[in-house]
């Protein structure tokens, strides 16, 4: 025990303070893992009354996440707090870094050391992560980033909900690239989509974002944790010898390796060939890499995209919604039906890659897009919709959750 740093003597310190302790050299007492050896750190199946942030943390552990690096920012705090307690129990590592830039950097370093890893933040923190998001895309590093959105720009209103990062998450880093973003609407989905986010990240070797917000992050609902064999957990494909940074298939995803496996990995954010060698002047290699990094997501968009439809079969009016706004949208659609409007709801669980073909297949006369922003996804719907479909944006920009009444009023007008 260090006597010169008084806070080291507090018996209740539960995070791993002493970084050069090896994993497994635990400082702390009995844990869920010790009590349920066969659960490998997962919480037992059953029903839990969780807030969204807690469900995300548990979903991550269920998916095999064993590394979390983060920096405190409202309204995402509970994710890192829970991970700081739960990861040591699950044999994982938690570290609080000096900023969001370092957080995503540490996550990427841990992934190449063999981890499934996650960080959580909010809009301003995401802005700081932007450069390392591009690095993760370029080096094809699977990782999960939770964006608990709040009102902005800048510091804005730190505890109020908003969906203002739908475009930031897609475009924040430089140049041309694709990412995957999921938008849960319930606490159950916060858990399940987090597991899926890891599966998608591992399958496509790409950063996957969970687009939460201050409202759903702190909403409490019952979450059912399914049995161990009821939820698929996918791991990265490995192939000793590689190549680890390219395939001849223009939509292909190369296998991965980890540090310490004797692969002499050559990982760089510079343009590289399939073995990782820097090729900073060759236009053909640049073209091939840019094309594959984009096409491996776009050409698999139909496989990646998940959505749910309610009452759309005969609908001439479709509400396209995502996240917590979809809850209000479903209520509004039901009320509109009661008033004789043939309304339906298309709920996007996957926002990026944007499900263009699904939107284009809608034969509705009118599409309404309710959002807690100035109409970011409405623009995507507009460019994807058929020429004879009118697209209307319904916006709410005051940091309050959009209501069924606002959507109903627009639909009835």
């Amino acid at each position: 025990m260090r006597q010169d740093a008084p806070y080291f003597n507090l018996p209740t310190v539960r995070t791993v303070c002493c970084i050069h302790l090896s994993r497994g050299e635990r400082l702390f007492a009995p844990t869920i893992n010790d009590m349920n050896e066969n659960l490998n750190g997962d919480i037992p199946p059953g029903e839990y009354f969780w807030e969204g942030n807690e469900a995300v943390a548990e979903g991550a552990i269920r998916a095999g996440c064993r590394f979390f690096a983060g920096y405190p920012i409202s309204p995402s705090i509970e994710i890192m707090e829970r991970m700081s307690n739960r990861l040591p129990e699950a044999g994982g590592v938690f570290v609080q870094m000096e900023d969001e830039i370092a957080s995503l950097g540490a996550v990427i370093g841990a992934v190449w050391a063999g981890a499934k890893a996650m960080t959580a933040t909010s809009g301003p923190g995401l802005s700081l992560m932007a450069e390392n998001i591009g690095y993760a895309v370029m080096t094809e590093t699977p990782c999960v980033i939770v964006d608990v959105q709040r009102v902005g720009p800048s510091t804005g209103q730190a505890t109020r909900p908003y969906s203002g990062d739908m475009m930031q998450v897609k475009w924040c880093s430089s140049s041309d690239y694709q990412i995957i973003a999921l938008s849960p609407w319930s606490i159950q989905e916060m858990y399940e989509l987090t597991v899926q986010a890891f599966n998608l990240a591992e399958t496509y070797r790409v950063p996957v974002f969970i687009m939460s917000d201050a409202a759903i992050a702190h909403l409490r609902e019952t979450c059912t944790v399914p049995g161990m064999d009821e939820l698929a957990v996918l791991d990265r494909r490995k192939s000793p010898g590689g190549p680890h940074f390219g395939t001849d298939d223009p939509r292909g995803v190369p296998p991965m390796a980890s540090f310490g496996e004797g692969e002499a990995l050559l990982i760089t954010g510079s343009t590289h060939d399939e073995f990782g060698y820097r090729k900073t002047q060759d236009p053909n290699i640049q073209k091939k890499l840019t094309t594959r990094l984009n096409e491996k997501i776009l050409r698999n968009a139909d496989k990646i995209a998940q959505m749910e439809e309610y009452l759309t079969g005969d609908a001439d009016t479709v509400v396209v919604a995502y996240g917590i706004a979809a809850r209000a949208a479903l209520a509004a659609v039901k009320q509109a039906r009661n008033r004789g409007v043939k309304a339906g709801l298309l709920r996007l669980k996957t926002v990026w890659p944007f499900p263009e073909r699904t939107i284009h297949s809608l034969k509705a006369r009118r599409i309404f897009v309710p959002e807690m922003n100035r109409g970011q996804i409405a623009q995507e719907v507009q460019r994807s919709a058929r020429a004879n479909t009118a697209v209307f944006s319904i916006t709410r920009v005051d940091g309050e959750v959009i209501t069924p009444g606002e959507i109903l009023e627009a639909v009835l007008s």
Partner: protein
Amino acid sequence: MEHKLKKYLRTETLPTPFCPGCGHGILMTNILRAIDELELDFRNMLFVSGIGCAGWIPSPHYKADTLHVTHGRPIAFATGAKLFNPQLKVMVISGDGDLASIGGNHLIHAARRDTDITVICANNEIYGMTGGQVSCTTGEGTYTSTTMGGNPERPFDLCRLVEAAGAGYVARSSVMHTRPLINYIKKALCHRGFSFIDVLSPCPTHYGRKEDRPSPPEILRDLMKRCITRQKAEDSPPETIEGKIIIGEFVS
């Protein structure tokens, strides 16, 4: 007979991209000498580097796991890798601009956390790759691309900085003092916790040109003269060591 360090190199990447007279090639060799003398398992080593000339020392040349990352962030990436797999021997090699200017926050926090990594700063006191702009280690009054009237700012003493932040092993050497340099690298690699070595490595192309001293041999000889040992500095009157670079171990 094959050179005994050749086994550590991706020979297809040679010759290095470093300019004639650059110190980075000497540093590149002496890091390998230290590893060879310690008989470390190169397959279990991870080299993390950032952006700039020094970032090219390990990547692509070293035939080990190498991670070449965003500007200023190698220590953050190294922290994640080391924490998740403590069996890895992790070394960060990067320049003064990368580690101390844009990445200064990560440097001091890794020293404070006592993260078990070795950081080697290839310090050329300039932004070499972008054409010789002033760095946070450029001396006061020095002429650079962005201080044509002489640098008005004071430089960092990186050893004192990381010492204050809690580093457990701190030393400074230059590429002209190779035997002590190799010894310091060996001691840093054997230290459990955060270790840091500031290595003066001249940049004749950019630092020298703006200073109107384009001759690499002259610059290297000058570096020899500027460096004095810690022992000698302590025994000398303060006015005689002004402008000198003090080399030696500061925390060990």
